[in-house]
């Protein structure tokens, strides 16, 4: 295991902007499109993604490093990662409900939705392919979550304005939303000239 020699600050910036999990890799699209109608829900879902991504990638790193690699079971990573993600989300939901009612209403109701978000599995798999160290993994998971949150928040505010715009009838709803996402992705690609992390 040789972690790539990446500066942590660079990694954080890259995962938020240049390699944005949504707009560069197009992962986690379903909830991105369906929830982004409403700014408050988008914010809640985004926050929940940050939390779940940070925790699950870290837990998956531990499982990968101390269980799958020693036993030679790396080929099972898809199944194991998914199971771990589902379990972690369950535990998070229970703990949040106990700690704070307000937080539960803001975040908790989105948690089951996130279990099946492909961005969560995607980040865990990238973490494996890129051979990140534990600290790098945590930074990368957190950064990807922030990137997702930023993207959905931006899209939801844009959609609120588009709602009042004279969009051709055939493009209303998902049509104009996909076009909007395309523009956003192009804008984010502008960042990629600044630095690249692969």
């Amino acid at each position, binding site marked *: 295991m040789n972690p790539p020699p990446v500066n942590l600050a660079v990694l954080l910036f890259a995962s938020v902007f240049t390699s944005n999990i949504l707009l560069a890799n197009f992962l986690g699209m379903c909830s991105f499109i369906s929830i982004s109608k409403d700014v408050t829900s988008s914010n809640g879902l985004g926050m929940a993604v940050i939390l779940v991504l940070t925790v699950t990638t870290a837990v998956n790193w531990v499982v990968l490093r101390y269980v799958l690699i020693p036993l*030679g*079971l790396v080929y099972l990573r898809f199944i194991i990662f998914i*199971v771990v993600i589902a379990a972690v989300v369950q535990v998070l939901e229970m703990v949040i409900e106990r700690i704070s009612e307000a937080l539960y209403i803001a975040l908790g109701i989105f948690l089951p939705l996130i279990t099946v978000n492909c961005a969560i599995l995607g980040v865990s798999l990238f973490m494996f392919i890129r051979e990140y160290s534990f600290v790098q993994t945590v930074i990368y998971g957190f950064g990807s979550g922030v990137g997702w949150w930023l993207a959905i928040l931006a899209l939801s505010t844009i959609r609120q304005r588009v709602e009042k715009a004279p969009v051709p009838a055939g493009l209303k709803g998902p049509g104009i939303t996909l076009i909007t996402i395309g523009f956003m992705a192009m804008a984010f690609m502008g960042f990629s000239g600044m630095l690249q992390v692969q």
Partner: protein
Amino acid sequence: MSLAFLIGPLAIGGIAAVLAGIISVVDSIVNNYGECKIDINSGQKSLTVTGGSSLLQLLAQERIFVPSACGGRGSCGVCKVRVLSDVGPILPTELPYLEEEERENGTRLSCQIKVKDDMDIEIPEELFNIKEIRGVVEEINDMTHDIKEVRVKLIDPPQLEFKAGQYAQLESKPYGKIKEPAQRAYSMSSPPHDRDHLEFYVRLVPGGIVTTWTFEELQEGEKIRLIAPIGDFHMRDTDALKVMIAGGSGMAPIKSIVLDMWEKGDTDKPVWFFFGARTRKDLFYTEKLKEIESKWENFHFIEALSEPTPEDKWDGEVGLITDVLDRYFKGEMNTNGKPMEGYLCGSPGMIDACIAVMTKNGIPEDKIYYDKFA
């Protein structure tokens, strides 16, 4: 023989088991809210329960049955209680069922609220009287081609006090493809003075779980479970002229009320009872009511058919019950200036139409009491 192929499945199983273990440990630690006190109606009753479940469930455990038509899934909005302590903001699952005023006075759906701490609640006092009842089916009689009368002898408790007009939740047993017991509301058609029996009219609703069970599975001699008495549909003790309207099996609560008044000798105020049906074969229990009418001077019983067939040879009132009602308001009932009250039981469509006719003819809306088939 190499057992290497076992490593994969075992590893998956092991990891899943560890995760399941973690979840159940966290569940028992995090979801353990210890003993919580529920104070009902400022000190009228105090319960000590183990927290972590819904308020509806915990109250039912303590034999306080808050009515719930859906059984706690948050889809009927019936199990409302007022919660006086702070249990957090209203959940998105409750919003559709709460009126503006209820949101402000702390009304919540008890099936959606988890008991996590001591709490003070307010419930209607009648709920304390709601009991779980065991009885045995004594008779099942055909009243019409699609209405059966079910007569139940009470076993535990052996007698029940209720107000004429109230209803019971009748519980069906699993049958055929239906794997769970289901509860549906039926009004008592027997009067309260028949203390050790309850009677119900069950109309066959195509596809209905409990009605199909009653028609196809239920046998005389079978033991059944009921929850009763529920509801605030009952005779108001005033001198106003009572206008009662029943459609089909909506006969049940009105019949109970009429028999109750007759038995008690409460016969000094005028009562007009309109019973609507489609054809002659949908009429039932009318002979007995006519007999009472002949002895009770102030009681008037009017049966009306909306679509009599030529074979019916019907010479009574014809037309929708609303039209018949309107004619009587303008004619025979001679209501001018007298205080009046309305009592209705039937389908939602019939009730809404009758309320319109009643208000038009001078019965204030808050003096119209009804029991809608849900």
